[in-house]
């Protein structure tokens, strides 16, 4: 807990430092990392704690992103309407997809979540009124009122940070509660949980819907941040990217999603934008092949450090 607070203090100070040197690009970049951290944290609930390998999580982020974008595109700029709409849309999607998918097990579950995600992708792609595969450019970010202008990068950053804090705190409380312990019990041994009489399906579905709702919020923030949304947000490769973040950071660890998002996005940016002279001399175009490094790191983690970065950190402190 103390460590978490320390991290937040640093995060709070970050944009002020950046403003001082007039570099708002990195504040904007940091906001994007935070948004992905929220999305990855929501996946962590389903995947890390719940043990459900859902390849369709990008569909919930996308549902939220599109719901929020459509609101703004149609003139409803208020975040107080748009963002709850996004959360509702993604929670509904999660409920529908979860209700069907959770009746299957194993690889069939993975396949069905994948299939649903692709269906959502193709459906959104066909919505020519909202851009189709060109995507939808928004005239503005959502409006929060209260004298806060989300168009200001620093303000947006703090709002996103607030939501990240709420998500992490929420996850922490959920996992400490009885609900959380049941979810973990189901992950550990589903047959036993069932035998004890726990309504496995209902708990898994609830988990799915909560995760979907938070993912939808991340989607709404993403749409406002970039003022742009396109169907690629829903593609199964995006789900894969979120999974990479979760495993990189630490499956089933509270900060797993956030750390994973930070490491992955940070790594990609650093590799492609800051050339390392000796490496460039050996392999001139290495910067365009950042995914190779990401892939290798990820493979290494799966094979040798299954608990991710967060796992390594907590093990080092002898925890």
């Amino acid at each position: 807990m103390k460590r978490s607070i320390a991290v937040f203090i640093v995060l709070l100070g970050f944009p002020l430092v950046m403003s001082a040197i007039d570099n708002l690009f990195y504040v904007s970049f940091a906001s994007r990392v935070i948004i992905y951290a929220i999305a990855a944290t929501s996946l962590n609930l389903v995947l890390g704690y719940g043990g459900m390998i859902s390849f369709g999580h990008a569909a919930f982020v996308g549902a939220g992103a599109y719901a929020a974008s459509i609101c703004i595109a149609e003139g409803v700029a208020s975040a107080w309407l748009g963002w709850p709409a996004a959360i509702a849309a993604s929670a509904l999607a999660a409920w529908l997809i979860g209700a069907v998918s959770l009746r299957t097990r194993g690889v069939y579950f993975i396949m069905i979540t994948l299939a649903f995600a692709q269906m959502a992708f193709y459906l959104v792609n066909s919505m020519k009124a909202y851009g189709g595969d060109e995507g939808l450019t928004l005239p503005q970010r959502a409006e929060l009122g209260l004298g806060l202008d989300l168009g200001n990068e620093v303000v947006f950053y703090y709002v996103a940070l607030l939501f990240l804090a709420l998500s992490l705190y929420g996850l922490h409380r959920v996992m400490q509660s009885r609900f959380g312990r049941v979810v973990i019990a189901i992950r550990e041994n589903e047959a036993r949980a069932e035998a004890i009489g726990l309504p496995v399906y209902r708990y898994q579905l609830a988990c799915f819907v909560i995760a979907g709702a938070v993912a939808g919020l991340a989607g709404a923030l993403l749409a406002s941040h970039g003022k742009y949304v396109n169907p690629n947000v829903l593609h199964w490769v995006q789900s894969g990217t979120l999974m990479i973040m979760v495993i990189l950071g630490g499956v089933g660890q509270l900060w797993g999603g956030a750390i994973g998002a930070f490491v992955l996005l940070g790594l990609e940016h650093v590799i492609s934008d800051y050339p390392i002279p000796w490496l460039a001399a050996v392999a001139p175009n290495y910067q365009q092949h950042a995914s190779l490094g990401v892939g290798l790191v990820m493979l290494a983690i799966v094979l040798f450090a299954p608990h991710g970065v967060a796992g390594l950190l907590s093990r080092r402190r002898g925890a």
Partner: protein
Amino acid sequence: MRGRICSVALSLALASGVQAADKVKVGFISTLSGPSAALGVDIRDGFQLAVKMNGGKLGALPAEVLVGDDQFKPDVGRQIAEKYVRLDKVDFLTGFVFSNIMLAAVPVAFEARIIYVSPNAAPSPLAGRQCNPYFFVASWPNDAYHEAAGQHATNKGYKNAYLIAPNYQAGKDSLAGFKRYYKGNVAAEVYTQLGQLDYSAELAQLRAARPDALYIFLPGGMGINFIKQFVAAGLSTDIPLIVPGFGSDQDIIRPVGEAMLGLFDTAHWAIDFDNAANRRFVAAFEKEYKRLPSVFAAQGWDTAMLIDSGVRGVKGKIEDVEALRKALKAAKFESVRGSFKFNRNQFPIQNYYLRVVGKDSQGRLVNKTIGTVFKDHGDAYVQDCPMK
């Protein structure tokens, strides 16, 4: 060194808001990978060659060109644009091949009052109601080649034309443009997926429809695959094919080959244009890159020359964006297409020609000019543009 001037600006601490006008920074983002990469590569090569022939300068200031690959993805293009505009603080943005990617990315430039000079994409919304003072077109309005093709089809007396284009803004513009000047009947108007590579289903439909002409707008890899499959299905002997100029230029001639002979197309430029600027361009391009330039390369070259004339016009004071705009609008440069002037929506007014794919004196496949379809042709949307 294949003419790649590629360097990345670092220095977090040195990034500042005020641009010192001791050099010109250009952010060049295009499709440099994937089946349609040849287009972006040609534009880039034409652009960089022009800068090189200028001694690495644009308008007497040293030029720094940052090159990015949008991978044919709008969100990637937009992210790179954000980086170039906000982090690297470029003075000009340019490069996009495809309208959908460009439309996702240019708002970033417009918001920051950075000028975008388009070497290719010029969709109708930006010609009309949404015309923008920071948007300049060095190529042609999206509809133009299609309008010329439609006029050609009318001139040839075709009665039953079948139309195919991909389902995005430029695709929609293309067929609308064709129909604006084509007076015959439209047998069918088919929209395919952007990036689609397998046209077996569409070709079967085409066979069943029996039109007397086929007009397709399928740029890049899409066109290559379609024409190959069209020929393989035996339809090329039954149905005359008309394409817009970029559907039959060097990037498609190279992979498809002799099957292209006799194909008619319309464009604003051809390799055999006899003016000093073009002769210089074609010779230099062939020498540097060991291949013939396509219309895309010509556009890349003209874009660089236009920017050069703009910077020259403000005598290097590019921080004065309004003066820079005026200088660009004056378009005082030698274009490879002959004369060049801007309409009040900052889209060009120029001639369009009929070309046919034939062999040059060395037996190579090229597009030869055989006639003029339009003289001093503008675009159909300028009346909706509020700019003066």
